[in-house]
């Protein structure tokens, strides 16, 4: 970083400064924070910011991942590489285990993504976490546009959109009662493009499935899904190999890919800059069910 003569910061430097401030504030004020890590690009940026916020000390809180059992292997390997490089403690809360313990019920219709909610809330209670860092951005979806940086959750992990605390300046109110917790969104003001520009600038490891690669895929409901033992083919569906990449990573039974030749971060940025579909609308089956799908899931305690 060199300093510009008129003391202007680039938008990435300013966003980085704002996010680092949030990480430090939470580490100073909360007893048991934890960083939610999915291995997706947003959580990679979160790890990077946390690394910078406390450097040269280690990140002073553990990392929590909800294992749906349907995660992309490339994502899990990226997670492991980050965790070992930073020397942070990884806690994995497994949806499979939660089903086995009866914490969540697999009725055969509910998606794994949706079952993450119960698994997550159980993990929060079990470990007594008081603050959970999430990678949510306000530009992702209409329901998130009014989300606070500090988002208060009650005993049931629920979000009440009508009863949010006003958030002024950079003075965050972290007061909670026993049993409650706060969701913290340091990337609130970042957009999808900011995330990619930052990943390009920082040159850090991201899951390989974000970049174009050959993959065996099939079409379902207008989405391209990956061939997998978890994705049994339905009548009429056929698998073929195409050059694709993923714009988001999640449950592989629901996360579609797009045909793309973008195999580097600059190429991805060029592609996104002219893309005409939002990342969620295009490739996330779980957001398509209703216009208010995200708001419903948020109320229940999803991120």
């Amino acid at each position, binding site marked *: *970083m060199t300093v510009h003569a008129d003391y202007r910061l680039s938008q990435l430097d300013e966003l980085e400064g704002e996010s680092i401030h949030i990480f430090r504030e939470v580490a100073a004020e909360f007893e048991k924070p934890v960083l939610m890590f999915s291995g997706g690009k947003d959580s990679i940026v979160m790890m990077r910011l946390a690394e910078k916020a406390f*450097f040269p000390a280690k990140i002073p809180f553990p990392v929590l991942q909800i294992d749906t059992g349907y995660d992309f292997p490339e994502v899990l390997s990226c997670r492991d590489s980050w965790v070992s490089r930073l020397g942070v403690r990884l806690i994995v809360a497994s949806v499979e285990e939660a089903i086995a313990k009866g914490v969540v019920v697999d009725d055969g219709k509910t998606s794994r993504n949706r079952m993450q909610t119960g698994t997550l809330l159980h993990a929060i209670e079990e470990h007594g976490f008081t603050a959970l860092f999430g990678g949510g951005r306000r530009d992702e979806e209409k329901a998130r*546009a009014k989300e606070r940086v500090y988002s208060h959750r009650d005993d049931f992990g629920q979000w009440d959109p009508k009863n*949010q605390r006003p958030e002024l300046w950079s003075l965050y109110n972290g007061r909670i009662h026993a049993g409650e917790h706060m969701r913290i969104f340091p990337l609130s003001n970042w957009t999808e493009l900011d995330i990619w520009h930052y990943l390009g600038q920082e040159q850090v490891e991201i899951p390989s499935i974000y970049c174009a690669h050959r993959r065996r895929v099939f079409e379902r409901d207008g989405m391209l899904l990956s061939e997998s033992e978890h994705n049994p083919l339905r009548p009429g569906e056929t698998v073929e190999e195409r050059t694709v990449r993923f714009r988001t990573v999640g449950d592989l039974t629901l996360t579609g890919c797009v045909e793309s030749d973008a195999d580097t971060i600059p190429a991805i940025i060029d592609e996104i800059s002219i893309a005409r579909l939002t990342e969620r609308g295009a490739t996330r089956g779980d957001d398509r069910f209703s216009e208010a799908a995200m708001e419903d899931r948020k109320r229940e305690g999803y991120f």
Partner: protein
Amino acid sequence: MTGIDSGTPGRPSMDLLRFATAGSVDDGKSTLIGRLLLDSKSIFADQLAAVEATSVSRGYDYTDLALLTDGLRSEREQGITIDVAYRYFATPNRKFIIADTPGHVQYTRNMVTGASTADLGLVLVDARQGLTEQSRRHAVILSLLRVPHLVLCVNKMDLVEYSQERFHEIHKEFTSFATKLSIPDLTIIPISALKGDNVVTRSKDMDWYEGPSLLHHLENIHVASDRDLVDTRFPVQYVVRPKSDEYHDYRGYAGRVAGGILKPGDDVLVLPSGMTSKISEIDLFDKALQEAFPPMSVTVRLEDDVDVSRGDMICRPQNAPTPSQDIDAMVCWMSTTPLRPRQKVAIKHTTRTARALIKDVLYRLDVNSLHRDLETKELTLNEIGRVQLRTTIPLLCDPYEKNRTTGSFILIDEATGVTLGAGMIN
């Protein structure tokens, strides 16, 4: 600086502008924001398709751009915006964050919230109606929150035949009203959000207007100079002590620069202890910086092993805030339970949290007329007034007009944990 001096393709060379808008359904604010998002190509095909479909199903003659910006379901049902919503768009040189708030008096607290972080405030008036109580209120709130730049958009010029005369009437009326306020920089632009006149491109129907379009103005306004680059203020947020073999003796004070320019070698004073030292290093991750300025988050190391902890302030020996337990401030009340003298609350100021006693309510300010009501001894939801508090420990504060970070605080209910109010120190 990342992006600015690098010739690497794909890297941005842009900065950030935060602006606040306030307004009701009728004055075209949502249409204006929709227009900015659409014309700057920040709207995606699926979002636009959803809005087009809704417009058709409601029987509108044109696509209602206002639908792009309404968020939560309850608001969709009521057709109103009831909270602060944040929107994002970017042009090649600048990223914009819009804090979009409703304009009615019952949402004053939302307007105050939106204005608190804004570099610029945008007030809309309907050219047919001219200044209303609501547009005056927005300007008053922006001025109280010391938003350095104000833009008045005289909207719906298409409905007054793009009349220069009408524009000048409103221009004159607002300028005269603005003399009662503190507005360092005022720009007035005639626009039509619906037709797009002077929003992104200059209007063909108003050749008498020689100023910039709204977007051109937003793109070119200089905001870095609004920050205090003179008075060094570094509230310590977190102490970094790695306790590792490699960094055995490392002790860094992490925080966000609130004022001034910090450099290695600077003499510093640490408050409240009053100890002095010199800055040895300024770190940002693994880089040593030559200087740090607002709003950078850095880690400062000192030459001497002085005792510094969260809540302390690093400043200069000849330029320090006065520690004080008696605070005189303008407070915007945000709770349904009124603020009354003798009430005890928690107060959060920079990185310092204390308890405070409300000593007195000096007056209530009418945000429409600027009238001071000296009779009232309480503030109810959405009211703003001058309040005196006594804190349990000294706060290291500056007047809000000098520094928006070291001059602001929030009040918190100790029992429920909710944010009760926001204060600006006099």
